[in-house]
């Protein structure tokens, strides 16, 4: 097989060489416990704190507002459960959206069982939440609004500055899952009135199992993990030092990339791929907002065929993409995001997400564009459906959709 092509960066990225080089020192030479007082500990503590500054810098936060976690899922859990349990005396109502990642949705479903009331805001056909619906659902019992910055399946960017403003006006905490946007889109937690923000290292060329939660100073949460006094009593456990160092380095590089407008070039590649696919292949539908969409994601429905079969065929050609999101393909359920956007369920079964990264090239896009039409045609030949034999109109009732 010739060189493989990776177009699944929103699932995870490789580690950059500079990140790896930094990390390896903390696996080999500097092994001390950052909580220790001796020199072995102190030299590690110093770099952990530098990493905290680097992460904070990406979102214009103060270093002491950054708490390292074991990844994005933990950051989401800590934020939502942490605010919920710390504010039970004030209220029990949480507002989120129908298109959040399962790390948020399943946490909210868990809290529902514990007596909290959750509102799942609808979205329009582009996957943008309804700001008026948000205003209308706020009650004096609302303690938290949790809306993601960028959706991981379709890439739509939410109006988080507006949401932050509304939250602040009503004195409600605002959490945003920024795992797909951190280090890729400009974020200023102060301008955007964000109180809590989740970030993850392995989406920005850092190591897996490493992330952070930003908590605005003065905001109290109930910690998820109890133990020692690590992370200012908010996340016990001896630090994952190489993970933190790697995340710090990856954050520093991501910030420089943003300053150098690196994502403009990636966006142009994405648009080139989109144009090629929509021109060369009939009956394709691009999902997500036409403009307010992160430049790395292209989500497309190929009508009359099923997504996994497309992924398998692409994989056979050495091209890695995903159908919706990694966990969606394990679920077999068509995507809850596309469902919330009103995409026909049969059509949603034929979804592929291409997500681009820093090292993708135009040649790679050309390679995809040269193999994809044939492979789609091949699968369509196999399908009983076509313009002559359409999907059933009301293809069947969708009983309550499980998130």
């Amino acid at each position, binding site marked *: 097989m010739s060189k493989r092509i990776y177009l699944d960066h929103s699932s995870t990225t490789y580690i950059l060489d500079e990140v790896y080089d930094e990390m390896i020192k903390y696996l080999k030479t500097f092994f001390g416990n950052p909580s220790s007082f001796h020199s072995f500990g102190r030299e590690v503590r110093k770099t952990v704190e530098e990493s905290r500054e680097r992460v904070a810098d990406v979102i214009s936060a103060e270093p002491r507002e950054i708490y390292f976690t074991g990844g994005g899922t933990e950051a989401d859990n800590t934020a939502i459960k942490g605010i919920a349990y710390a504010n039970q005396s004030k209220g029990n109502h949480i507002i989120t959206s129908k298109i959040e990642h399962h790390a948020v949705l399943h946490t909210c479903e868990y809290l529902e069982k514990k007596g909290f009331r959750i509102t799942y805001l609808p979205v329009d056909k582009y996957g943008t939440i309804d700001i008026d619906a948000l205003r209308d659902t706020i009650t004096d019992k609302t303690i938290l609004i949790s809306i993601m910055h960028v959706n991981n399946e379709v890439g739509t960017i939410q109006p988080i500055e507006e949401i932050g403003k509304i939250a602040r006006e009503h004195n409600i905490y605002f959490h945003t899952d920024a795992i797909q946007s951190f280090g890729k889109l400009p974020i200023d937690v102060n301008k955007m009135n964000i109180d809590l923000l989740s970030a993850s290292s392995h989406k920005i060329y850092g190591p897996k199992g490493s992330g952070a939660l930003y908590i605005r100073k003065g905001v109290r949460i109930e910690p998820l993990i109890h133990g020692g006094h690590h992370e200012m009593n908010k996340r016990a456990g001896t630090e994952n030092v190489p993970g933190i160092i790697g995340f710090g380095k990856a954050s520093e590089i991501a910030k420089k990339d943003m300053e150098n407008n690196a994502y403009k070039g990636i966006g142009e590649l994405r648009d080139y791929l989109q144009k090629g696919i929509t021109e060369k292949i009939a009956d394709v539908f691009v999902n997500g907002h036409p403009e307010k969409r992160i430049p790395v994601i292209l989500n497309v429905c190929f009508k009359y065929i099923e997504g996994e079969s497309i992924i398998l065929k692409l994989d056979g050609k050495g091209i890695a993409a995903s159908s919706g999101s990694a966990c969606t393909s*394990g679920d077999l359920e068509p995507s809850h995001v596309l469902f919330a956007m009103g995409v026909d369920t049969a059509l949603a079964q034929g979804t592929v997400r291409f997500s681009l990264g820093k090292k993708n090239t135009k040649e790679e896009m050309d390679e995809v564009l040269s193999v994809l039409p044939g492979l789609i045609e091949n699968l369509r030949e196999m399908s009983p459906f076509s313009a002559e034999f359409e999907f059933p109109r009301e293809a069947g009732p969708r009983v309550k959709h499980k998130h």
Partner: protein
Amino acid sequence: MNYSEKVMEHFNNPRNMGEIPDADGVGLVGNPVCGDMMKIFIKVNKDTEVIEDIKFKTFGCGAAIASSSMVTELIKDKGMTIDDALKITNKNVIEELDGLPPVKKHCSVLAEEGLQSAIEDYKKKKQKNG
């Protein structure tokens, strides 16, 4: 999730894919909303009730396509009568494919049902035509 080599082989080189325009029986099972739908066409010898030709068209994942391909291969060129064909179960399909991931077992059930549905259609048409 991992597919066996046999599944991948059938997915990449499906046997008996296509339609039989003047089929004696057509089975249509599944629902695109749930992610798979299978159409099975059979040509039956009216005197011997032997299935002389079988083809499929499938909307679905790798396992659904491989299961359709396998069920047609189990019938084709074996001189199997409709009664013998009705004895084929999803377990046979799974075994012949060297296994399917647990979440994909339903694809083999669909293949069994597709075949049965095509045979039922043949029987119904035969009754109607006397």
